[in-house]
């Protein structure tokens, strides 16, 4: 199965609520990245967490990484309608760190 699998596939919440998305991966990594994609647009890098880090914050984003479980989570606090997008985790391929494998993504809908 695929490196970088995410759940849930889709998440619908109300504005002001928190959104949590999870990502699992299979091989050893030196970093894990989260990207956001608005409908019909390119991806935007959100945050990179290194394998020796357990938690990282950026504004309303909080990312955790558990290398023993090969999993990561992205938490968006106090969500806004503008956070509606697809969120992808990505991990470098073992054989070439230039290349990323993207998860299938979580479609987040934040209702006003």
């Amino acid at each position: 199965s695929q490196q970088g699998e995410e759940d849930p596939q889709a998440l619908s919440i109300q504005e002001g609520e928190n959104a949590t998305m999870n990502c699992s991966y299979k091989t050893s990594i030196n970093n894990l990245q989260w990207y956001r994609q608005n409908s019909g647009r390119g991806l935007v890098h959100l945050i990179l967490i290194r394998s020796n880090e357990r938690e990282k914050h950026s504004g309303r984003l909080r990312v955790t990484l558990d290398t023993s479980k090969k999993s990561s989570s992205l938490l968006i606090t106090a969500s806004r309608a503008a956070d509606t997008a697809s969120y992808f985790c990505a991990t470098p391929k073992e054989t070439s760190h230039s290349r990323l494998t993207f998860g299938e993504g979580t479609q987040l809908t934040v209702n006003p």
Partner: protein
Amino acid sequence: DAMVIQNPRYQVTQFGKPVTLSCSQTLNHNVMYWYQQKSSQAPKLLFHYYDKDFNNEADTPDNFQSRRPNTSFCFLDIRSPGLGDAAMYLCATSQHQETQYFGPGTRLLVL
């Protein structure tokens, strides 16, 4: 200030008619990537250039080719587009093998 630019944003071609998509960057990054993304799916890497070195993914069809004439520009050539090649094509760049910077994408429609 656009950093990764893709042209055109929308491209319509006919079945079997060659098409070229272009990507340019102002970041001076040494790595450039082409991804194919179909609806509600993850981006799928087609190939990438590390400087002038071309790296093809094992499952990228021969129908897809790429050129990188200089650091700033990279092209995706689809020699004989089929209906299954209709997708969003994303160009990205990176330096030091970490964060990738994506262009807005070109949506390809094959009639």
